């Protein structure tokens, strides 16, 4: 492959071979010499006071080395609010909450001993729904003031509300007065499981003044920040060795087993390994369910005038990433539309449910369901085509977004038209009946999402003695392809063959700082940092080549991987031959630090209205359209085709972009028609992978036609934008809208189930 084409060429992912052959090392594959095994005793109750804990039987079980409880280690942590204990303190607040932990010679002994822990509980009434939480008769946390604020969240004293976010734009009252038509609706999205293949795991080896932790976390530096000091270490002493991630999607952004394994290792003086079973995983972390009430006003020709949204997230028993979900979703809540008057009021409430946290999209897929159902309702009321009404109102270059920001590099109209064309939108009616009596319908949806700003990253690019490169970046490879894309940037910038560039595994003691692997930020942020480092590498190499040629560095140029001398056309050196040329020999090593941060472009939003001139370094937009078939007699739903078009800025590795979107569509199919965690009286009924229905390959057997729209980002590496989360953002909304069109019945919750279709009742 020619070097100048490396950007935009589809490259086989560099982590692919190891992963499909089973060579890749995940956390469970790590074993340390002399290690013990840990197991957790979880709360069977959703809400109860811990009156006493008797660990004597567990301690007496042969092979047990330590049993710990919250009382032994009263430690709390939290990214926004330090409310979450490592092991329950005084009270349990959700079914599955870790209460005590055991370290033993074998995993079986540890698990058997954990069963012998006896806890005397006084059961409390559970806050089992958003309504219960808002009523506030029972408080999940007695007093928010008991906890230290560690981030942007706004708990309301004496309530179960842990955060409120408002987005206020224009004058909502005036907006509705100016509207000819108003549609009002409710929407509900179910509680979801990330359903990653690899359950949470950790191996810790703790000494008094340093600790090594092996884990598959997606944001190692953020986790270090949340727990290192609490566990008695400065950051330099707290070393996280990352393994491959068997699926992240947000569920590995926070500490789970790591602090427990460290405490057990501290107590026993030995390494401790812990791996959750699937049953434990189900109660560990979820996507919060959310309820919307949404009112939209427009003129009779379909121009949006006003939108008011109230939304409630059930973030579970502790704040975790809930406030961030509320923030990101709040900014995205109106969709990619020009709406002169908006009022979003988002509440994050705590309940006695499993923890709702980051999940691919940080709430954006959920709000997209609500605003896109509204657009269809409005189109129906005005007798307009759903595509046409969207195109009339979408953001374009120079439009003012509902946060007051003037938008640039906007291609959502193009995405809508392309996604629609990919399913043959214009040739199909909204809904029709097949000769076999099946109902068909089409649906479309578009979304907007910001990337977390401000944030920073850095990387180290090192040339080895043989002229190959190592890139050390803490942007974790979790399927999004960062381990392939970063070498593409370096290869393009320097001309080194991509086969000679490797991204090293992440280690917080060695790899330079990166905030998180979240928010679809890696290609953009780490990519910019790699380019920054490569400029320096280039400068260093020119000096070395000049030295070898005995000319001044000003005479040497590096273009497309060839060093040339401006004054001597005979002097030519391929960068791939640099080691053989001897130019590196006995010279000081070639290495460079690259950095990228977005603090300087960020204009902090107004605290009340969240209006600002620059909220984020990068907005993501895209659209998907779906055709579905419904069997009116059995309620069976079959997706016929999904068309997608996403603005990726510049597709660095097009096949990687397509894979992200394909995976996102299948994930969205699960949200639209299959997935939900079902609780009855605080008890999880379907905590296994048969009863919690993730789509199988057989369910994903439908046509997908995906287009990559490329509207260059002026600040992106080669113009790239992110695509990690966006692939799934409009999938469920497009499918749900198509189902509603087919059935000629507006469903106001997902998943849409056959039962809802047959009985016209939603659960």
């Amino acid at each position, binding site marked *: 492959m020619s070097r100048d084409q490396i950007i935009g060429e589809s490259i086989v992912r560099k982590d692919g071979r190891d992963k499909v052959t089973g060579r890749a090392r995940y956390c469970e594959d790590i074993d340390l010499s002399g290690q013990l095994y840990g197991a957790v005793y979880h709360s069977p109750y959703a809400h109860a006071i811990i009156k006493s804990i008797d660990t004597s039987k567990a301690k007496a079980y042969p092979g047990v080395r330590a049993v710990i409880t919250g009382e032994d280690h009263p430690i709390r942590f939290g990214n926004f609010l330090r409310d979450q204990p490592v092991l329950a303190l005084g009270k349990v607040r959700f079914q599955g909450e870790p209460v005590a932990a055991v370290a033993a010679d074998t995993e079986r002994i540890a698990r058997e001993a954990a069963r012998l822990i006896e806890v005397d509980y006084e059961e409390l009434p559970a806050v089992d729904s958003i309504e219960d939480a808002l009523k506030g008769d029972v408080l999940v946390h007695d007093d928010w003031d008991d906890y230290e604020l560690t981030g942007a969240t706004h708990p309301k004293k004496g309530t179960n509300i842990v955060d409120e976010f408002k987005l206020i734009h224009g004058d909502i009252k005036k907006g509705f007065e100016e509207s000819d038509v108003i549609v009002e609706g409710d929407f509900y999205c179910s509680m979801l499981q990330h359903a990653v293949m690899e359950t949470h795991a950790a191996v810790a080896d703790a000494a008094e003044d340093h600790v090594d932790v092996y884990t598959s976390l997606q944001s190692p530096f953020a986790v270090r920040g949340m727990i290192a000091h609490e566990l008695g270490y400065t950051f330099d002493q707290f070393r996280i060795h990352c393994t491959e991630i068997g699926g992240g999607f947000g569920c590995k952004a926070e500490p789970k087993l790591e602090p427990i394994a460290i405490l057990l290792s501290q107590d026993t003086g030995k390494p401790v390994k812990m791996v959750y*079973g*699937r049953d434990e995983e189900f109660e560990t972390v979820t996507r919060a369910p959310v309820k919307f009430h949404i009112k939209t006003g427009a003129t009779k020709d379909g121009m949006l005038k006003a939108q008011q949204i109230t939304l409630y997230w059930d973030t579970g028993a502790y704040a975790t990433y809930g406030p961030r979900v509320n923030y990101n979703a709040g900014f995205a809540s109106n969709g990619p539309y020009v709406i002169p008057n908006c009022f979003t009021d988002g509440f994050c409430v705590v309940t006695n449910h499993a923890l709702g946290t980051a999940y691919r999209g940080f709430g954006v897929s959920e709000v997209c369901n609500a605003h896109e159902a509204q657009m269809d309702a409005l189109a129906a009321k005005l007798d307009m085509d759903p595509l046409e009404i969207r195109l009339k109102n979408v953001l374009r270059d120079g439009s003012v977004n509902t946060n007051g920001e003037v938008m640039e590099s906007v291609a959502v109209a193009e995405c809508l038209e392309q996604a629609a064309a990919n399913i043959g939108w214009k040739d199909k009616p909204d809904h029709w009946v097949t000769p076999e009596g099946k109902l068909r319908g089409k649906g479309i949806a578009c979304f907007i999402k910001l990337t977390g700003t401000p944030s920073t990253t850095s990387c180290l690019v090192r040339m080895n003695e043989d002229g190959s490169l190592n890139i050390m970046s803490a942007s974790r490879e979790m399927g999004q392809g960062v381990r392939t894309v970063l070498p593409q940037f370096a290869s393009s910038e320097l001309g080194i063959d991509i086969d000679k560039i490797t991204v090293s595994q992440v280690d917080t003691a060695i790899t330079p700082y990166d905030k998180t692997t979240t928010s679809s930020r890696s290609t953009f942020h780490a990519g910019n940092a790699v380019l920054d480092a490569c400029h320096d590498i280039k400068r260093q190499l020119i000096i070395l080549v000049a030295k070898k040629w005995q000319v001044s560095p000003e005479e040497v140029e590096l273009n497309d991987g060839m060093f040339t001398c401006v004054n001597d056309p005979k002097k030519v050196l391929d960068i791939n031959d640099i080691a053989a040329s001897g130019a590196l020999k006995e010279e000081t090593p070639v290495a460079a630090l690259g950095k990228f941060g977005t603090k300087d472009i960020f204009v902090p939003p107004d605290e009340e209205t969240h209006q600002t001139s620059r909220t984020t370094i990068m907005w993501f937009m895209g659209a998907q359209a779906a055709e579905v078939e419904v069997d009116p007699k059995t309620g069976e739903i079959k997706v016929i085709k999904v068309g997608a078009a996403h603005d990726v800025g510049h597709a660095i590795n097009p096949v990687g972009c397509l894979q992200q979107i394909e995976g996102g569509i299948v994930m969205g199919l699960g949200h639209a028609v299959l997935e939900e965690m079902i609780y009855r009286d605080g008890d999880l009924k*379907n905590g*296994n*992978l*048969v*009863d919690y229905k993730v789509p*199988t390959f057989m*369910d994903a057997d439908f046509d997908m036609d995906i287009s990559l729209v490329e509207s260059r980002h002026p600040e992106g590496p080669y113009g790239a934008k992110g695509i990690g989360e966006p692939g799934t953002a409009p999938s469920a909304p497009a499918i749900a809208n198509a189902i509603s069109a087919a059935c000629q019945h507006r469903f106001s919750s997902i998943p849409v189930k056959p039962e809802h279709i047959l009985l016209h009742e939603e659960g």
Partner: protein
Amino acid sequence: MLPEFELYEPETLSEACELKKLPNTKIVAGGTDIYVSMHGGKLRPDALVDIKNIKELRVNERTNDGLVLGALTTHRSIEEDDFYKKNYSALFDGCSRVGSVQTRCRGTLGGNICNAVPSADSIGPLLVFGTVCVIESCSGEREVPLEEFFTGPKKTVLGEDEILKELRIPAPAAKSGSCYIKYTRRKAMDLALCGYAICVSADENDVITAARAALTTSAPTPVRAKNTEGYLIGKKIDDVDVSELGKISSAEAKPRTSWRSSAEFRYALIEELAGRAFNNAVRRMRGE
């Protein structure tokens, strides 16, 4: 993780019957139900008797009178042999939709029956072929018609030393067709939310001479739908009113409301699936 247990691997059926009497002991064949329950902590037996080494349980005989299938017959072996697809279509339908390829390679007919859940995919089809269970104990052998095998959800007639040995499945009449419809939310690795099995035979004038129908996940145990059968027998195929058939079948069901689905939804499904299964069975009978 599996809790600790004693594992016995007898070579003979009589040995296995003796071992089954041990306290808190379970028989295991493919293990696709038992090991899953043990991993999740729901089941903690002191001992397992693995019967996979017992050759007597691997019988596979085909005669003009019908089949004798050993309890260890796997779902996959039924799925992969076109003989069943052609002659025992409903059984093929059921066995080929159990779990995943992996579970079908491990899971057995005997295990599916003895686990006795109302959603078992092979049971409805076996009921409509008039299957008889041959049960072995320390004191000998007895035969029980499959429809009398279940006494409640996860409960069977098997005594403390009894093991299901084989299934005797009579050959359907020459002009017969059968079908099993498994209704699921997902296309693979799912449990039947509702199952409908039917087998009909007709004479040269298209008069139905024999009919059996069975409902699964529609009552505490898999059940025969005798009123449905009564409605069909003696009728000309073209005179069958599928909407009436559906109503009769639905009236025979006793589904319950659970978090998986409401009873009302299951009644509606049975009403629809009855006609679809019947029509498909007739199409197969006619070689269409």
